[in-house]
């Protein structure tokens, strides 16, 4: 099993979520984060008197634990749905998972996903 961690634009989250669901990947966990990459950060106004740089910009981080065989597909789905071509589209990381457990049933491993 692998955990796919994707950091995507806030405004793309619905599209990504929908695309995953359409392909049968319903299980996921998501939360708001603030991130910085090569992208510069946004400039906000302070009363129009002066700008201030907010160098961490809001993103959504999604986590999906999937079977090894699904990793490529999931990366594909996410990256297509999250793509705009502009700086700030985000990153996807793949992290090993040694075990999974479903609390309700006590199932373990792949069955627990």
């Amino acid at each position, binding site marked *: 099993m692998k955990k796919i961690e994707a950091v995507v634009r*806030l*405004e*793309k989250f*619905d599209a990504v979520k929908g695309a995953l669901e359409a392909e049968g990947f319903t299980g996921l966990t998501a939360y*708001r984060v603030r991130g910085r990459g090569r992208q510069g950060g*946004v*400039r*906000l*106004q302070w009363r129009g008197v002066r700008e201030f740089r*907010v160098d961490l910009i809001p993103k959504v981080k999604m986590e999906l634990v999937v079977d090894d065989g699904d990793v490529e597909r999931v990366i594909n789905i996410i990256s297509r749905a999250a793509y*705009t071509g502009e700086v700030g589209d985000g990153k996807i990381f793949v992290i090993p998972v040694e075990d999974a457990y479903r609390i309700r049933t006590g199932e373990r491993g792949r069955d627990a996903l």
Partner: protein
Amino acid sequence: MSAGDTAWVLASAALVLLMTPGVAFFYGGMVRQKNVLSVIMQSFSSIMVVGVLWALTGYTLAFAPGNPLIGGLQWLGLRGVWFSPYAAYAPGVPQLAQMAFQAMFAVITPALIIGAFAERARFGPLLLFIALWSLLVYDPVAHWVWGYGGWLRSLGVLDFAGGIVVHMAAGTAALASALVLRPRYDFDGSVIEPENVPFVALGAALLWFGWFGFNAGSALAAGGLASLAFVNTFLAPAAAGLTWMIVTWAVRGKSSVLGTMAGLVAGLAAITPAAGYVDPMSAIAIGASAGLVTYGAALLRVRMRLDDSLDVWAIHGVGGMWGAIATGIFADVGAAGLLYGGVRQFLVQLVGVAAVGAYVFAASLALFKLMDLAMGFTVKRHEEAIGLDLSEHGETAYPEI
């Protein structure tokens, strides 16, 4: 001149001013976080733009004696509007106070409309729209119904505090906008996630509080009539809010907080034209029936898949319209409605509703269409996606989180 009346009208004017920030929170809490500042900014802009415009041209166009369709220009720039009362409107208060009180009505009306195209209007065109609509729609309609010599006033149309002039007009313009402007890109016939429901309750509280000035202040004197309007402004929204509470409970199994707040405001809109013409038990009846009618209108709006997602039409348009008609049914103070044999009054109310409805709808439709063609009224897709706070104002509501 009476110090007591003046005290009441000034206090009322301050109360009505507070309603527009009330709208800002009532609407602002219902949009998504990325758009909350834009809604607040648009509401405050209505105060600023219409406020200045009212002093320059609006007041004279609406209230100066003129012809049946529009006021004269003698009070341009408030020339001659001063300490002495203008008896045709308010014999007990300085004309300046009557002017200020009316200014607040002119200010809130466009602010009500903005709920119809929340989360997608460009700020520049919006400002222009507010100014033009105020000039071309609000000022004439206010003259017709309230202005000395206005044709609907002469006809005998009753609109105590603006159920027709303010609420029906705003709701009708909202409907026009929803027919002309593109819906939000992510609108699926359904609705949106409210950012902050306590803000909606705060807005409702400020609206109700301010509405006592709106309705009871419209007596323009502190006496029995103001007291009656006050009582009715208390009872009708209570009844309407209860109605929504019960209906949502019956329909969905749980009473809705957002729905109850919507019901309160619907009851307020409905009692507005009637406040000084009906007795308190009629006010309860008008409130309760307005609850049912506006709930139905909100359902209909959803079924029509119109993106007037904050229900300006259903709540204010239909609520105000129903109140104006109900005034023709229940009036028993200083006028006689249908229940008291006043067939003519009832028909006159229908004429008022139809005439104002038709003019506001046609004029608003044309204005939105022309402006949208000329300059584009709505933002680009990616601007909508990142939200108006950033795309239009370069700020976010909670930069720290």
